[in-house]
């Protein structure tokens, strides 16, 4: 029985790894302070949920979730073409709010605040992933593939250009690189992975509503990226595991029931602060965010 709880946690870790390493691609490797990641996650979740609820096979809905998020990633990169640093952060944050508002107010499509219940568990070529264990295998395979693709990207010449953009965009331009094109690719790829993570999330929890995609939900992912260390995939994965398991471990600390909610969060915050005091660049951070 207790395994079921671990399986649940591993599934969450798998989904968050996809989310965090794809955010690492934009923030850590390309230096774009992208706060619109949770919006891509939302787009993916809603796309997959709506499509499968209307009878589309899982695999198509799953890929469309990623592609749809990717299209929005391209769109966002065009809209924020001339923005940098803090201004880019604000513009992408606004994008998060826009997508949230659409999910909340386009009631005809998303049922608004009522949310979408009863999202079916995925099935692939006749094999149903209805048990949590099979869903875990699916999630881990997708997480692993995502990891290798992103690792391949950051180690490729294209990835090196992205890092050059992060370190000195002007110099990269002088070298004759089309930095805008590169940045927009990076954002779109990152959005694609956020979209498929959203699809997995929707199929796993089986209920989504706009409140799952607010700024509040973005913060944990951002924390993972920073604690893991910018531009480090290994660090991101370790940070994901630590930060998902930490609050769960705190459930087993015997607080009196009168303070159980706040006490856990205070302790969680305290541990985060300590990590960043002793490891200001995160676990394996290579660069510092300007």
């Amino acid at each position, binding site marked *: *029985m*207790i*395994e*079921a*709880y671990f399986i*649940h*946690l591993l599934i*969450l870790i798998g989904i968050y790894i996809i989310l965090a390493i794809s955010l690492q691609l934009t923030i850590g490797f390309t230096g774009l302070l992208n706060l619109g990641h949770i919006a891509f996650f939302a787009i993916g979740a809603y796309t997959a949920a709506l499509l499968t609820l209307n009878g589309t096979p899982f695999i198509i809905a799953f890929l469309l979730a990623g592609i749809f998020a990717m299209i929005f990633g391209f769109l966002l990169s065009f809209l924020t073409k001339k923005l940098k640093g803090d201004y880019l952060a604000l513009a992408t944050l606004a994008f998060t709010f826009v997508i949230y508002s659409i999910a*909340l*107010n386009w*009631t005809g499509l998303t049922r*608004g*605040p*009522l*949310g979408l*219940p009863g999202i079916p568990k995925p099935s692939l070529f006749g094999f149903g992933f209805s048990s949590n264990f099979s869903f875990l295998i699916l999630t881990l395979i997708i997480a692993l593939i995502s990891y290798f693709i992103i690792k391949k990207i950051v180690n490729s010449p294209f990835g090196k250009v992205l890092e050059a953009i992060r370190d000195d965009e002007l110099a990269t331009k002088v070298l004759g690189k089309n930095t805008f094109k590169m940045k927009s690719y990076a954002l779109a790829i990152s959005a694609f992975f956020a979209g498929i993570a959203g699809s997995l*999330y929707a199929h796993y*929890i*089986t*209920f*989504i*509503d706009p*409140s*799952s995609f607010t700024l509040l*939900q973005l913060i944990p992912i951002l924390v993972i990226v920073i604690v893991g260390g910018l531009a480090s995939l290994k660090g991101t994965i370790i940070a994901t595991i630590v930060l998902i398991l930490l609050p*769960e471990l705190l*459930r087993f600390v015997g607080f009196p*029931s009168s303070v*159980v*909610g*706040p006490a*856990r*969060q205070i302790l969680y915050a305290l541990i985060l602060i300590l990590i960043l005091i002793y490891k200001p660049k995160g676990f394996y951070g290579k660069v510092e965010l300007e």
Partner: protein
Amino acid sequence: MMKNKQFGMVLTFLIIVILVINLIIFMPKQKEEIKIGVILPLSGNAAVYGVSAKEGIDLALEELSTDESIKIKLIYEDSQCNSEKAVSAARKLINVNKVKIIIGHICSNAAMAVAPIVEENKVILLSPGASSTDLTNAGDYIFRNRQTISGEVSKIAEIAYKKFDINKVAIIYVNNEYGVNAKGIFKTEFEEEGQIVSTEAYEQDATDFKTQLTKIKQQEPEAIFLAGYIKESAIIIKQATELGLETQFFSTLGIEGQELLDTAGESAEGIIYTAPMFDVKSDERIIKEFVNKYKIKYEKEPTYVFAANGYDALKILALNIKKCDTNTECIKKELYNTKNYPGVSGTTTFDENGDVNKPVMIKTVKNGQFVPYETK
């Protein structure tokens, strides 16, 4: 001498052994401890409601602790009103603590996300506060002892056209699951008789409603139905008066509280709303007892109905656990058979969907007091 001493020792030993054996045989049988999981928003936006429910549950537990025939242990988990956190909490309670019964959820999103898990594991979920109409059909093991929105809202719609003979109503609702559901039900109910001239939404925690109210004013409604919470509703009533929108207001239980009188002042006079039978100032014996005990334990009044709902939830469960011991199927059956349980939050009868329809009363504000509305 020596022999006597030895004999004495043997005798004492024998007496002790006999006593111990006696104790073991005739000791009142200790009941097996039953673990009940509790998932509530104990931190975050909805923490006030979660803590209120928790206080009610704790009070019920304290009373039950004097009862020898039942031993209950509560395990609290915080959901923060977040569906993912609620799922983790439910998984932990079910898989690690092996609970068979969960009391939980004020927020509907958390309840909806947990619903498939409790169904799959055949765990009973009794919600003291989730309002979503989707929860009605979410599963067989899911119960709630919060008045459903439809019960309240249809009542107020009926009052509006029957007692007040009103034909044109505008709705202003909070853009969340509660407001959207309430708006929808009011609309279907009322449109059988009258006309909805305008529906306007607002975001929770908003403080300026002049845009929506101006739009409503142009439609000249005879009454406005407020589907929302006290904080915003009080400001809406105040701003409506400022804009010269002098109409009858209708609302639901969310409206009653000191905040309404403080913010809206005289404008609140005459508002008609539905309230559960739970009333802090009620003269009914069980409610009086509950309020007194609550005041002694927490040194404050039970402001929110969730305290009463939580209290009733554990009491009802305890009653059925006594009958069924740890047999979940039996408890489930007994819950469906619960008829007219005299709860603090009203007479409780579960219907075939595990919902309750507690009696509601119509109240109004008169001379700065919340009083039952006298039907003429």
